[in-house]
């Protein structure tokens, strides 16, 4: 009886080869970095003790924490607003299916890949040496990497949505801006919402890291609590941060569904 293939000739070989390479790379990496898995399992027994130690809270820090949150949130918010505007424009220039020029697209992608890979401390150093301490510096330091991230996230989404809309609008003679504003933004807006939330969290997290360069806010408070080995305060501050972010996440999800399936107008 004749054998009927389900995949075209050679594609099975290709898949096996790919799988083989992937597995080899993985095993090779494990060998390379000397992972001691046994130790890992042995020490799992420490988990309850360590977690138990963290299970204390100190309510007295809450007012301070909330105030610091306001600072962090407003910094993150402002960074977000500016970076979303810039990143939106640039990401439409960088998305493969709508870019006016492939060279430009690649340049933008590469440029921000570089920006993303410069560590926070280096930005902090350069910004503070030129601007001095303060929120202005924090804003700039966060802005750059925030834009870098958003561009990556946005272009991903733009490249995923259908080309048929671009086609239809192109055929009306609509300009690039028209296609972007009337076609792609309405289409992508829901996924953009998702990314904006992710980045808002990222910005808040980054503002925590920015304690290093003298930017206050919840991050500094947290760093100090950790430095003082004050578990009660640390846990409390964490709970505040997480609650805040959960509220944010779920309200953005709500907003997103509203836009997606929302009132038909």
């Amino acid at each position: 009886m004749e054998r009927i293939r389900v995949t075209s000739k050679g594609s099975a070989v290709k898949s096996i080869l790919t799988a083989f390479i992937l597995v080899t790379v993985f095993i090779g990496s494990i060998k390379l970095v000397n992972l001691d898995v046994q130790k890992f399992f042995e020490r799992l027994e420490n988990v309850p003790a360590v977690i138990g130690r963290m299970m204390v809270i100190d309510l007295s820090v809450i007012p301070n924490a909330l105030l610091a949150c306001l600072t962090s949130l407003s910094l993150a918010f402002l960074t977000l607003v500016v970076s979303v505007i810039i990143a939106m424009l640039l990401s439409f220039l960088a998305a493969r299916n709508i870019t006016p020029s492939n060279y430009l697209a690649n340049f933008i992608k590469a440029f921000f890949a570089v920006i993303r890979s410069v560590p926070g401390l280096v930005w902090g150093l350069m910004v503070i040496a030129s601007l001095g301490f303060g929120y202005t510096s924090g804003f700039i330091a966060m802005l750059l990497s925030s834009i870098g991230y958003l561009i990556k996230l946005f272009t991903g989404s733009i490249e995923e949505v259908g080309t048929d809309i671009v086609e239809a609008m192109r055929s009306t003679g609509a300009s690039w801006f028209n296609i972007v504003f009337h076609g792609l933004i309405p289409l992508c807006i829901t996924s953009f919402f998702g990314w904006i939330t992710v980045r808002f969290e990222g910005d808040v997290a980054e503002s925590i890291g920015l304690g290093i360069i003298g930017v206050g806010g919840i991050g500094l408070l947290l760093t100090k609590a950790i430095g003082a080995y004050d578990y009660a305060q640390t846990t409390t501050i964490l709970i505040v941060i997480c609650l805040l972010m959960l509220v944010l996440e779920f309200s953005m999800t709500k907003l997103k569904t509203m836009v997606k399936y929302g009132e038909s107008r």
Partner: protein
Amino acid sequence: MEAVLSIRDLVKVYGKETRALNGISLDFYPGEFIVVIGPSGAGKSTFIRCINRLVDPTEGDIVFDNQHMEKFSGRKLRDQRSKIGMIFQHYNLVSRTNVIKNVLHGQLSNTPLYKSLLGLYSQQDKQEAVELLKKVGLEDQMYKRADALSGGQMQRVGICRALLQRPKILLADEPIASLDPVSANIVMQQLHSISIEKQLTCVVNLHQVDYAKRYASRIIGIKKGEVVFDGSPAQLTDSMVRDIYEGKESQMTLQNKGGAAQAVANEDGKVSGAEQ
């Protein structure tokens, strides 16, 4: 009369091997209502999409409005395209935007960006959009989101969008594939009467030979990327139709051979019926 659109030796090769178009030369004149027929995969969609450069032709000239389409890019290409209306097989509406905005997209190329963003389309455009929507029976759905419409409703929105461009030539890729017969007839008739009224050239891909015969002023048969028929509906004889779709028939299993022949015969029967 001078041709609005003149196509010479058009070739389109997808990838390395698929020759979707294989040297097509045609002239289209103002006010013609051209229906393109041909078996599935013949290259009809590709042909139509080459005209407004949604697909870049591999070889050949496309002269529209005295200008070489294949040489343009950027602003120039957009200007040319704004003179070419297009209706898509799958509607291609912006699903999250409401109906009237989708229709107004037809005038984007003539509206400054800031105005279109604020929704400040000219009163005339808006009025025309509303009138077009009324014509196709969608005045009640004007503010519904495009994705809440049925297939047929969406298609009619797409037609309004193309007409709002006030084009010199109108391309349509199976515009009535998802319409019920009454809507289909009305749409075809509207296209037809607009074509006569404004001396607008229409190029329409159709699968329904009977509609082609009823509305076309000229029928073009494409098969395997080549023009195999070009003439008036009257010239399109039953044997001609069989010829155009023939390749298909022989592709079918032998077992069905009789059935297929029968089918074509039926088809012709129907066509002549419609002709009465």
